[in-house]
């Protein structure tokens, strides 16, 4: 009881209450903490979809037999391709690919039916693929080959191939794309939220001159700083919970790991973000500078985090560089905990990295801030 009372009467508590009421009164700040993350999660989750299906297919069927039509049907069966157009000649088809109207064009020759039934020479079909989008083209050509080969097997005597592969996909068996994107976006949201809000909290005080008033109070520096950090920290954890609920209820992203551990790591990352924000605010003279420099720092942090494009696909140099990016570690933790159900035994390298970042950034930023207070 005594400790509780002392806390209530301490200067720290008074300052923290002031900070909280300042934040709560600031409609813009609350808006910033709630609206952008939700919208970001929704749009990222829905719009960034690497799944390749419903590709537009153009067909030029010179053969025009039940067999050739069946081949077309086989290609569209799994919704990988949708027939967009039937062409009258090859130049028409190739023009459609050229204009980008269709992604793939299938040309079935006149003697298709005959070659299928003959013993010696196989039937040949041509597939044109628009490879401007290298990734889609690769997957599309893979699918096309696979489907056409399977179709061809119908005409060979019943033999199962001597070696078969049986693929099992772990952690995300349905290959739902939002399961990949959403945990990354939680990291992104937390990063932006923490650095922007903490920058704003300090810069505004500088701009309006209330920082000097704070100095006149009898409070110690650490009390001023802690009173600034703690309410932000609590708010940011609220933001994480909000993001997690969106992930869970809207995208049905599984949560396989432990929630307390995840919140602990999120708290660590919030400290990293607050540290970055404070640092930005102390080194920049005006609000405009703070805003532009935060762009300068946050952009590469996000790009090299693996939230949008996987780190493994980056060139070696960027993979190594990204080790110095705290967000990369948080994103790995988020995916590990949510999708794989990883515990500390697996995630300890990332945990140690985040811990070091948090300590270093908080130390540097608070000592800078303190030297400004003096």
């Amino acid at each position, binding site marked *: 009881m005594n400790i509780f009372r002392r806390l209530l009467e301490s200067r720290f508590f008074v300052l923290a209450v002031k900070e909280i009421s300042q934040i709560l009164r600031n409609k813009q700040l609350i808006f*910033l903490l709630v609206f952008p993350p939700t919208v970001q999660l929704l749009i990222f989750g829905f719009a960034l979809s690497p799944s390749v299906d419903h590709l537009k297919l153009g067909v030029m069927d010179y053969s025009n037999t039940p067999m050739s039509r069946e081949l077309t049907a086989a290609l569209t069966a799994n919704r990988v391709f949708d027939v967009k157009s039937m062409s009258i000649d090859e130049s028409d088809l190739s023009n459609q690919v050229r204009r980008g109207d269709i992604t793939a064009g299938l040309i079935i020759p006149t003697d298709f039916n005959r070659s299928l039934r003959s013993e010696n020479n196989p039937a040949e079909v041509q597939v044109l693929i628009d490879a401007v*989008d290298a990734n889609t083209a690769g997957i599309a050509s893979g699918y096309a080959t696979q489907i056409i080969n399977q179709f061809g097997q119908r005409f060979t005597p019943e033999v199962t191939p001597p070696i078969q592969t*049986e693929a099992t996909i772990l952690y995300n068996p349905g290959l739902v794309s939002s399961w990949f994107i959403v945990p990354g976006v939680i990291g992104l949201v937390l990063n932006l939220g923490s650095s922007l809000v903490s920058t704003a909290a300090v810069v505004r005080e500088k701009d309006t001159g209330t920082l000097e008033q704070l100095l006149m109070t009898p409070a110690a520096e650490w009390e001023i700083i802690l009173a600034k950090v703690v309410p932000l920290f609590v708010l940011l954890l609220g933001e994480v919970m909000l993001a997690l609920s969106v992930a869970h209820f809207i995208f049905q992203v599984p949560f396989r790991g432990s929630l307390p551990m995840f919140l602990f790591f999120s708290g660590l990352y919030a400290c990293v973000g607050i540290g970055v924000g404070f640092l930005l605010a102390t080194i920049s003279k005006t609000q405009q500078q703070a805003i532009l420099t935060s762009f300068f720092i946050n952009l590469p942090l996000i790009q090299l985090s693996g939230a949008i494009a996987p780190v493994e696909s980056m060139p070696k140099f960027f993979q190594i560089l990204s080790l110095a990016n705290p967000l990369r570690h948080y994103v790995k933790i988020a995916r590990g905990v949510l999708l794989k159900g990883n515990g500390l035994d697996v995630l300890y390298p990332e945990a140690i990295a985040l811990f070091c970042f948090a300590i270093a950034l908080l130390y540097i930023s608070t000592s800078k801030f303190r030297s400004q207070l003096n």
Partner: protein
Amino acid sequence: MKRILAQCKKELAQFRRDRLTLALAFILPLMTLFIFGFAIRLEAKNITLIVQDFDRSNLSQSYTERLYATNQFTPVQWNGLDPVKDGLDRGITKAAVIIPPKFNADVIAGRTSTVQVLIDGTDVNNARVIKNSLQAFTTVFVRDQNLAQSQPKITPHIRLWFNPGRQESLYIVPGVFGLILAIYPSLLAALAMSREKEQGTILQTYASSISAAELLLGKCLAYFVVAMGQAFVVIGLGCIVWRLGFAGDPTPLLIGGALFLLASVMFGLFIGVRANNRSVAVQGVATAGFLLALLLSGFIYPLSNIPFPLSLISNIVPARYFIELSRDAFVRGTGWSGVWIAPVMLLVLTFALFNLSRRILGRMQLPG
């Protein structure tokens, strides 16, 4: 006209005086160019793979060797208790291939032998690539080893157009141009507009005889000049570094590009007119600009992947049209017949943004 030019000159002078903003106006786009241009690759090369060979026969060993010889997979070592499950859990390997005992014996006896493949599905795109290429590899292996009795009845000839080597930079870099030029010119314009409101200098313009349209056009002209500078630097350097050249008629890109820069600056001014201070303006540009240009423009994944209600929004995203133009100019090379709609849409969007901002500004102005 004179007043528009005067406003433009004043704006440029103000922009030049602020050293840090000037520096960031050019450094930020370049930094984005290099990071995005180099680091965004969707398809993983050197996918880590563990092979657990329970057969240890000549056949299984040559299967393993050939698998690694495809250059798509790199072997990793992990000696845990359960190397496969543990390696996947820790992310040490992306996939594991388990060759069953009696692999060789089964194949020789004419029975089907099943190779187990476990794939880490966290990265959806690459999981699919890994699955397809392992299946394709096995088919090719069977054929090469003369294990299959029958010849394929259909041979598909697949021709990849425009980018036969499937270089991802050819897809990403023209898109990065669009992303950068959608964000940074708007950011600067939004800052300039909201600064006037924040510092109250806008009241002077309200009191003066300059009209809302003139004020907007002056600012727009100034930042259009800045945006042109950014475009030349970014596109020029991008073309040199990634060896991009015009694949066809460059005029759609030149005309459409200029319209796109206008649209981008107008978008910034529109946000600036709506916002009351700079941090709100920047938030607006950052959130709206980034979300729209990054996600709803077809920059990373094709536009056709965007689901229904969101796909409607993508129709009014200027970056989308510019990315179409830029990919056509640098990779496809179709020219006007393929992309004529893009400059038209950009013109319409610029007009719409200009009119919206003019109305909002005009409403706040004193009746003159």
